[in-house]
């Protein structure tokens, strides 16, 4: 018996330290500032062990049964802790509370175990000094092993989730062995065995599915069923579906919902299109979903549409996936459309072609590399591609949530000598959304629109061009490559919302 119980001490010590290290690593990884995370986690863990040790004196009878129960619980809590933390990180405001609760709980349980074991050993008529010496020796060897193996072996080759399950399994196996070895001495042994076996099965399944859990933790961020997920070189593309709608997310940001994207795309395309008569050659920068192209194809006078989108995965997906081609009406495979997969800035710099209408539908300026596509330098390159009569439209984030960002786009367009006409519309999935029309000569508000629109009319545009008090123009700087001020505005304004 003692050898078995001492082995148990060894396993408990190893597992206990591993859970602590996992929590520390995970917290540093998710929250940053590793010094603080490790210090507070070690502190909380050790303190909780003290609490556990204190309460161990209240366990009077059935020491072995208590030991087994606690062991199963440690396996369950410790084993699933990292998965739980990964899964809840995005979802709860008070992630730290859950983190410290799990650490505290594991600490209390581990703290209970060692004193209990010592008492079990005491009953087997060992000398006290022998017990103390052996138990602590195994305890500290276990700790050493854990601290050496964790960074060298487990983190690099197993990852945090799998490591956590792995040690949970160990704890549970110890519980099971004790159950079977000391079957005679345990009451309710059937119940104990059943719970130990079920926890073991659960942990083994978790261990096998660790990779799935990692991606599941991402999928939990989406309300609906994910029907497509792929990382291209540039972004993570996710498509979700429920009974009512299809949604596209890029890097976790909603790009459109099939229920109301018509509002967004009608507002993007038609005010500019209808303001000029002789638009034949159109350029779209971004817009790899082909939905703006679908709107453009309602004009028979258009002869060529050039779409420049960085991401081949995106345009291929919207050329081939039947759900998506039914949404964009196969626009990307229309013979009038030429798709070029390259960087828009680079392309604009090296192109001599002239266009009558330019649609800019880039992702929001949430980072410095996209921010470049909203600078005066970029707009100057675009101006060179515009014929004298040409019109340009830019999707420019929400004037309600991010007024500085929106008006900064407007100001930057003006700074390169363009006349602008800002407007906005309500898209339920996005909220109030803004656009800026720009041209080298004065802009004419359209008198008529193509017939089969669901949203836009001559009257609705008048409202769209009107900015109520809470969205009115604010003073901003011009966005330039050497200040990237728009990214700062955007982060400041959207940071408050998210």
């Amino acid at each position: 018996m003692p050898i078995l119980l001492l082995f148990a001490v060894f396993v408990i010590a190893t597992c206990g330290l591993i859970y602590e290290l996992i929590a520390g690593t995970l917290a540093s990884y998710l929250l940053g500032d590793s010094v603080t995370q490790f210090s507070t986690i070690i502190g909380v863990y050790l303190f909780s062990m003290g609490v556990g040790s204190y309460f161990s004196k209240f366990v009077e009878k059935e020491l072995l049964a208590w030991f087994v129960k606690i062991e199963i619980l440690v396996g369950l809590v410790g084993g699933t802790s990292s998965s739980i933390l990964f899964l809840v990180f995005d979802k709860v405001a008070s992630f730290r509370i859950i983190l410290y609760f799990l650490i505290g709980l594991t600490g209390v349980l581990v703290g209970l175990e060692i004193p209990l074991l010592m008492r079990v050993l005491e009953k087997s008529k060992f000398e006290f000094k022998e017990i103390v010496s052996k138990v602590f020796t195994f305890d500290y060897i276990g700790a050493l092993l854990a601290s050496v193996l964790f960074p060298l072996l487990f983190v690099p080759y197993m990852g945090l989730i799998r490591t956590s399950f792995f040690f949970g399994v160990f704890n549970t196996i110890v519980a099971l062995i004790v159950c079977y070895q000391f079957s005679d001495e345990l009451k309710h042994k059937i119940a104990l065995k059943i719970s130990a076996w079920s926890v073991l099965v659960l942990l083994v399944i978790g261990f096998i599915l660790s990779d799935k859990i990692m991606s599941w933790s991402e999928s939990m961020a989406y309300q609906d069923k994910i029907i497509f997920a792929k990382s291209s070189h540039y972004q993570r593309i996710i498509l979700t579906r429920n009974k009512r709608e299809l949604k596209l997310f890029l890097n976790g940001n909603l790009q459109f919902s099939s229920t109301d994207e018509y509002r967004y795309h009608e507002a993007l395309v038609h005010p500019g299109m209808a303001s000029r008569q002789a638009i034949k050659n159109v350029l779209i920068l971004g817009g790899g979903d082909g939905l703006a192209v679908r709107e453009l194809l309602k004009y028979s006078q258009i002869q060529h549409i050039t779409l420049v989108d960085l991401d081949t995965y995106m345009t291929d997906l919207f050329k081939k996936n039947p759900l998506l081609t039914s949404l964009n009406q196969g626009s990307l495979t229309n013979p009038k459309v030429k798709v070029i997969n390259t960087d828009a800035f680079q392309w604009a710099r090296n192109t001599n072609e002239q266009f009558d209408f330019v649609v800019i539908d880039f992702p929001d300026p949430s980072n410095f590399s996209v921010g470049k596509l909203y600078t005066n330098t970029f707009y100057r390159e675009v101006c060179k591609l515009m014929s004298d009569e040409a019109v340009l439209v830019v999707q420019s984030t929400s004037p309600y949530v991010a007024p500085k960002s929106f008006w900064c786009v407007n100001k930057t367009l003006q700074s390169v000598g363009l006349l602008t006409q800002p407007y906005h519309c309500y898209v339920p999935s996005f909220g109030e959304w803004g656009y800026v029309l720009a041209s080298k000569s004065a802009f004419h508000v359209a008198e008529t629109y193509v017939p089969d629109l669901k949203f836009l009319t001559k009257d609705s545009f008048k409202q769209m061009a009107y900015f109520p008090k809470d969205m009115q123009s604010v003073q901003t700087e011009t966005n330039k490559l050497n200040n990237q001020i728009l990214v700062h505005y955007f982060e400041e304004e959207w940071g408050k919302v998210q």
Partner: protein
Amino acid sequence: MGKGAMKNKLTRKTFLLRSLAGLGAFFGLSWGTKAILNPIKPTIKGRILGANHQIGHLLRNLSSPQKAEEKQSEEIIEVPILIVGTGIAGLSAARKLQKAGHKNFLLVDLEDHIGGNADAGKNATTAYPWAAHYLPIPNNEDKELLTFLEEQYIITGYNSAGLPIYNEYHLCQSPQERLFLKGRWQEGLIPNYGISESDRKQISDFLALMNQYRQAKGTDGRWAFDIPLALASKDEVYQQLDKISMTDFLSQHNLDSEYLLWYVNYCCRDDYGITSANTSAYAGIHYFAARRGKADNAESNAVLTWAEGNNFLAKALSTDFKDKIKTKTLVTQVNWNSDGVEATAYDWDKNVSVKIKAQRIILATPQFVNQRILPKESIQISTDLFQYAPWLVANITVNQIPIERDGFLCWDNVSYNSTSLGYISATHQQVSRDIDKWVLTYYLPLSHKSPVEARKDAIKKTHEEWTEDILTDLESFHPNIRETIEEINLKILGHGMIAPMIGFLSSENRKLASRNIDNRIFFAHSDLSGVSIFEESFYQGNRVADELLPYLSIS
């Protein structure tokens, strides 16, 4: 009570043995698994490039008179003006001559490319610098430089207030600088995050003091500190600053904040390759107080930069005379008489000796080279006083941007605790998002020892040793960078730049060194200014061309 408990009672010995065996098994398992998954520890690709010092040593050997005699002269070139060295000074001199209508000159360089310290490399992803990599927007009084920038469309025009409008592709893009301090990245290089109020106050006091110097003028009506340095005030009160070190200057002003001292030391190492304790206070202040650039579309501290660094400017300077440059040619000896100059050179590509007969020669080479190629008796100065700081530059190709939760790649990325100056991102100026590999240019001034010792140590180290040093440094702020590295190439710049040590700038020696010899041999190099920056090299080149022009019109 378990079955057979007593049977299994451990003796101390077996207990220890079993524990050891257990540990052994675990370690064995650990290493075994590691070995299976990762059979060989990956060695990082790359090599030490540019055997500069080897060619340099060739010069040392060839320039002894007997050896030169042994070589049979096989090629003779006659040209009115010979310019030795295609660094910025040599190229600037040539540009000025060409602009003045004197087109009969030849430039030679021992390397297989032009640029000197404005050297660059290139891989499938991007060009990258091997040394100098930026130009701060210049003072608007430096008309010659502004004119050059206009010629190259780096300045696109002037606004109504007369301020230059810079081409925004060339202005350093945002975000520019970040500092890793106390476990996190902060914007800018001046320590700010998590430091005490008194540290902050000292930093702002220091910057205010530097601003006073920036605005100060001498009794001679000149700026106290200026670029080019030759135009600055000669007032004793400023010249005296050259007699003490930058560190002494700070302590005289009761400035002792750890963070301020770090920052000033960083700046000295960045611009001069030596520590603040070795930098003259005049030079140290010069770094902060000599720039008064203003622009229509940039902040006054803005810089111009390119993927290939200042090689962009070297190429721009040489636009109109590319055909007059002969590279891979090592000048070993220069002699002259009343009829003209004769340079003995060695073309190491064709392996032939070359005799170049010229009317006049511009030595756009550092003084330690001049000392080897000019007859001993003609050298009027003590060239030992010209000390050069050695550097290590590494270009590191990575397949992933080093991203931490709180950071994003900037142009200049520095860690407070690092011995290096950090790295710059060579792709920073690229507007395209279509990048899948990045090149980080890592700068390490070898300022921990005297230049001579540091140089010797540096040459002995292998690529593997350097790579390990660099990775240890980088991993202290980018823990996961190792696996993203595809290649590390290194260059050791044994004589990287002139070091403005205490007393050097105000020495007679430095001033004497730029005097021509018999109106035949002219000197142009930034070491004559004592500060190794583009503007000074450019100035030296122009100065020497101006000095030479009167003789040309006579002949």
